[in-house]
């Protein structure tokens, strides 16, 4: 069964929720992992459903928070990721936006995936591709089409597109129940926004 769009973009992990002293499920707050220096800067989720920029600690650990996010609510977090990457890019002068998909591809060493908004994909498809077709393809095979070494995924973005490398080079997706932690590696250069 193909996963969600976010699951396909990153290296996916699942953690069992711990049991709180009162017997209920504990709320996960922080996830720590060993990271390398070249993975910096990191764009990670916090506990409030958005992303913050962080760096590797001196002991070699990178931290990310868990945001409340059910499987069906991942579209919101994906849209937030797109928005925050754009905002961070403008604030820090990252070269992470391109006017066209073709130019965005050229910015990455090994582009593998592209996430496109449904509306944009329908527009490019010239009216032949309906929202139902896109939904069916995403559900059955996990992507809309694979062309020229690039997998096209749709769903979640309100507009525009973003081009990414393989999940191993892009970051981590850690789910624990209805909580989700995302860590984008090399946030200034691993994802290129279009539009």
């Amino acid at each position, binding site marked *: 069964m193909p996963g969600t769009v976010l699951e396909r973009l990153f290296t996916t992990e699942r953690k069992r929720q711990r049991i709180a002293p009162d017997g209920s499920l504990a709320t996960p707050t922080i996830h720590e992992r060993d990271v390398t220096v070249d993975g910096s800067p990191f764009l990670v989720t916090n506990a409030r459903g958005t992303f913050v920029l962080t760096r590797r600690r001196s002991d070699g650990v990178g931290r990310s928070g868990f945001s409340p996010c059910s499987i069906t609510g991942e579209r919101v977090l994906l849209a937030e990721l797109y928005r925050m990457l754009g905002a961070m890019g403008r604030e820090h002068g990252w070269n992470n936006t391109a006017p*066209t*998909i*073709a*130019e965005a*591809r*050229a910015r990455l060493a090994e582009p593998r995936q*592209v996430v496109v908004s449904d509306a944009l*994909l329908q527009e*490019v*498809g*010239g009216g*032949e*591709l309906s929202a139902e077709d896109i939904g069916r393809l995403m559900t059955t095979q996990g992507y*809309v*089409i694979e*062309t*020229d070494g*690039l997998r*096209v995924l749709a769903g979640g973005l309100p507009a525009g597109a973003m081009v990414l490398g393989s999940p191993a080079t892009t970051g981590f997706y850690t789910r624990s129940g209805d909580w989700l932690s995302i860590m984008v590696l090399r946030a200034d250069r691993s994802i290129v926004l279009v539009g």
Partner: protein
Amino acid sequence: MKTAAEIRDRIRFLLCRELDRRVDEASQRLPWRCKFNHAHQLDARKQDHGERNWDYNRITSKRAQTMGLCMYGAEDAEQWPGDICEDEIDAKRCPWFEPIQTKEELLTEFVGQLQTEGWVEDNLPDVAQLLWALEAGGGTEVGLLVIPWWKRVWYWFLRIRVEPVVQVESPLALLEAVVVDPEEGEDAGDGS
């Protein structure tokens, strides 16, 4: 006997192939793909008002009687050299080459041509015959002459890069080498 679905697939394939051909051509430095190239009409009349036409000129080609001229810098007629740019090697060596169309214009032109009545019959006869076969089978339908959505997505990702300029000191280096059989050649070097 092919089914209507197979014929429709074949039409899509032929349209995709035509688009591929255009993309391939747009990636090359060809004289007629340069925005500075002007196809100048040659004066192929041997006589003008019963007298010899001193401007008579023609090329021994089955193509139209035109000669490509490079119009780069033609705004200044005093300085414009009026170079001929007709053969492929002229454009391949030219650093001022600029594509005549953008990627978007290329697709718009093709889509427009497909929608122009009679264009398919004149330029894509294979497609026209298949359309005729569908009509003969009572399968006439609207929207057959469209580029498939997956090809449009492919095209959207595509980056048309014009091949780099060829730098050679002599254009003769671009000509194909002629292989001479030493046994049949006059200068075989065996002293006989």
